[in-house]
Structures are given as structure tokens and as C-alpha cells.
């Protein structure tokens, strides 16, 4: 384990950003946000960014291919190109875990080249949580926010940041920073972890239990009458899906610029009425089905397809941002029968 005192953090950022793009969470008037480090930006202490870190690997829109139209001939222009290495600093445990969930979708056969390209070149420097919010429930899904992993795991104490490489990629980066960091023992980190773990026990959602859901529970919940009442308040906007670190649905569309056609993909939301619309119509007829889809996906379908791993990481963003405060916790409590 290495450490660097807080007052030298800027030097660390400068060093990393001199070799590759570095993104750190910074405070803005509209909450924390990952921004490219430019030598002046200060790292935010906020628990989490408004938008999740999935944008780095699965951006909201991305160009897939261009068609150049000249008279009556069409030329196809590939847009995919090798990314440069980049570092994302300060990713919380929940978001780190979300990459694993996205990987299982995008890196499974057929591999999504665009996603893989970014994953290959992105280095995740995580940051352990010390002050979880009342909306946090990552522990429900077995995530230890005090051990966030990533390529390098960081712990920030009152005076220093402790860094520990968790992967080869991380080790390589950490080694390149040796001139700025020093060796450290884990005692301060362990003490902080223990303290944080106590806080986690006291969180209002600490008792939230997902065991009622998971692999193979489709029939048990699919026709539950509660979906109707739960979905009643849903406005069908896409806020929950767009702030969610694990939502991965997208649409592919063409945009005619006048001189070429850009085929791009963009985030889509299962909450929208035209999502999954096909030639014959839409299989999800009302908001009840759309609402059910989102939560069934996170709590039942995803685990069923992925060895029991849940599709939610308990970051609490949807709880904070839903316009009418309907969220996965309320769904779990109502359907899972626990309080």
C-alpha cells in the first residue's frame, strides 16, 4: 500500500494527467460531476456524482458508423478508433461494481467493440466511502463500500490518500507514481474501515434484504398485483434509467446531416412508451409493464442470466432523482415483504 499526503494530491493528478486523460469528480452548482483534470480542478468530497461513471465506457450517445452519400452512391466510413488510455479517479464502490454488471452484457459474445475499446483503455481508481448517505444500500447487494476495488483502490483519511493496486493495470499506474507516493501500512485505513462499517450498520436501509429476489424468481413476481399500485405514480420519464450506473439499454438511430448519415446509438429507457416497439407494436402495453420490466430486470432477470448477480448496486441515485420518489427500495419492500 502506498500513500500520498492530501497537500500533494494536486501533484499526483498533474503527474497522471501528463501521461493520459484524467477525470476526477468536481463540485458544480448542479452537484458533483466527473470532469477532465486541467491542473486547477479540485476533487469533490461528495459521496457520489449525479451521473454515474458508466458514461466513460457507455456514453449517452456514440457514433457507430457514417454513410457518405454522393449522388446515388453510398460510401461507408468506419468511425471506431483505438482509444487512448484514460484514468477515472474517485469512483465509488457501487459504480465500480456497476462496470462488472455492464461487462457481463457488453463483453459477452457478441463483444461490443466500442465498449471493450473503452474498458481496455480505462483505468479505474476507486475511492472508499466514509460517509454513506441515507439512500445508500450497496450492502444489500454484498458490496463493501470500504473496499471498493477497481484497478487501484483508494482510501482518503483526514491527511492522506492511501492507494493500493488491485490489478496489473493498476499496479503499473501506481508504480509510475512511486516518486510521489510513499509506502504505508494499512492501520489507518483499517481503522477508518471499521469506523465506516459501524456507520453502515446504522443506515436506514441497512436491513434491506434482496434474498427474496434473484435467480429463477420470474414466475413468483411477474404477475404480482403490487406492480399496478407501485407503477401508478410512475410518470414514464427516463430519469432513473439515465442516472443508473447499470442501466444499459440503447437505441440505434440515423441522423442525416445533409452531407452524410451518421448512425449513432444513444441511451434508451425501458420507461419510455416506444421502447421495444416492433413492427407489430409494443409488447409492453402500459406503464405497468414498463415499470415492472425495469425492476424485474434488476432483481430477477439479470440474476437469472448471470449466476445470481443482481443488476442493482444500491447507489441510491434513482432514490434521489426520481421526480415522484418511486424507487427500487420501495419496490423491494413491497414485493419482498420486508420492512
Amino acid at each position, binding site marked *: 500500500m502506498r500513500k500520498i499526503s492530501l497537500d500533494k494530491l494536486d501533484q499526483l493528478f498533474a503527474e497522471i494527467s501528463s501521461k493520459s486523460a484524467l477525470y476526477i469528480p468536481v463540485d458544480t452548482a448542479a452537484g458533483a460531476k466527473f470532469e477532465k483534470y486541467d491542473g486547477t480542478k479540485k476533487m469533490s468530497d461528495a459521496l457520489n456524482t449525479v451521473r454515474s461513471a458508466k458514461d466513460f465506457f457507455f456514453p449517452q450517445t456514440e457514433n457507430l458508423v457514417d454513410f457518405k452519400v454522393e449522388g446515388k452512391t453510398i460510401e461507408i466510413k468506419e468511425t471506431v478508433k483505438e482509444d487512448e488510455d484514460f484514468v477515472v479517479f474517485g469512483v465509488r464502490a457501487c459504480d465500480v461494481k456497476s462496470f462488472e454488471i455492464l461487462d457481463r452484457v457488453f463483453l459477452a459474445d457478441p463483444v461490443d467493440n466500442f465498449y471493450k475499446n473503452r474498458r481496455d483503455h480505462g483505468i479505474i481508481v476507486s475511492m472508499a466511502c466514509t460517509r454513506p448517505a441515507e439512500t445508500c444500500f450497496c450492502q444489500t447487494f454484498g458490496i463493501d463500500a470500504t473496499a471498493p476495488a477497481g484497478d487501484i483502490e483508494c482510501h482518503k483519511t483526514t491527511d492522506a490518500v492511501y492507494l493500493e493496486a488491485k490489478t496489473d493495470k493498476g499496479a503499473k499506474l501506481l508504480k509510475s507514481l512511486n516518486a510521489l507516493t510513499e509506502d504505508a501500512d494499512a492501520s489507518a485505513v483499517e481503522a477508518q474501515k471499521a469506523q465506516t462499517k459501524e456507520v453502515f450498520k446504522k443506515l436506514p436501509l441497512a436491513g434491506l434484504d434482496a434474498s427474496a429476489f434473484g435467480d429463477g424468481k420470474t414466475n413468483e413476481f411477474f404477475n404480482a398485483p403490487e406492480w399496478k399500485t407501485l407503477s401508478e405514480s410512475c410518470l414514464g420519464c427516463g430519469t432513473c434509467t439515465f442516472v443508473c450506473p447499470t442501466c444499459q439499454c440503447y437505441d440505434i438511430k440515423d441522423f442525416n*446531416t445533409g*452531407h452524410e448519415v451518421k448512425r449513432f446509438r444513444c441511451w434508451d429507457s425501458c420507461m419510455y412508451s416506444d421502447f421495444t416497439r416492433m413492427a407489430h407494436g409494443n409488447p409492453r402495453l402500459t406503464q405497468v409493464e414498463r415499470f415492472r420490466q425495469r425492476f424485474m430486470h434488476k432483481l430477477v432477470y439479470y440474476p437469472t442470466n448471470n449466476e445470481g448477480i443482481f443488476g442493482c448496486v444500491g447507489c441510491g441515485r434513482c432514490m434521489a432523482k426520481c421526480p415522484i420518489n418511486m424507487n427500487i427500495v420501495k419496490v423491494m419492500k413491497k414485493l419482498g415483504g420486508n420492512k
Partner: protein
Amino acid sequence: MQVNEFKPLIVAFCCNWCSYAGADLAGNNRLNYPAEVKIVRVPCSCRVNPMFILRAFQKGADGVILCGCHPGDCHYTSGNYYTRRRMALLFSMLDYLGIEKERTRVEWVSAAEGAKFAATMNDFVEKVISLGENKRLEDLRCKK
């Protein structure tokens, strides 16, 4: 003489009954105005949806001008009165968003005002040239 390289793209929406005829009259009288002005014929100025204006800017226009009958002379009696309110509010909003107000204009041109049509276009193009390329309402994807 300084040669201005910038050739703006101007979309002019003209109502069929007055302004389009005014533009025709400018032609009949061989009154020159810049070829950058391209006219789209609409039945009435009130047919022009703010979406068309934004669309023009998106696709690369540097200025958009609407021409209709003089208030009170609308072929459909009241169409241009609605145009006037809609565009007053829209233009004020564009200005509020910091988008150059000289890029949009409404002008009343009657079928007899060929000279006014040409003069208006000359003036409008000149103003847009002095502003330069449309940057504030551009869609980068549409740039060549």
C-alpha cells in the same frame, strides 16, 4: 477593396400571396440581391413553425427571415397577426438565450414591394455577414 470570404446561408420563408409575389416582382424588375438567399414558399407566414427556423439553423443556415403580408392585409385575414406574436416571443427567447438577434427577422413585404424585398434581403445578408458564421445554434454534426 476587401473581399469577404464568408458566404452566409439565408433561408427566407415567404408567404404565397404577398411576399413571394414581392420576390417575383423584384425579379421582374431585375433588382439584385445576394444569391445566398433561398426562398421557401409557404401559404402564409403563419405556416412557419419555430421548428422550421431552428431546423434551418441546425442544418447550417446563418440567418432566417420570414416575410409575410403587411398586418391587416393577410390573405387569410389574421395569419400574420399570429405570426407576429409567435415570432415576437420566439425571437425574444432566442435573444434571451444569447443567440444573435440579427440572425432572425420578420419583414412585411407586399406583392407590390419588389424593391423592399430586394432591399430587405441586401440589408439582412449584410447584417448576417457582419455577424459571421452561426456558431450559437449550430449542430456540429452538420458541419462539413
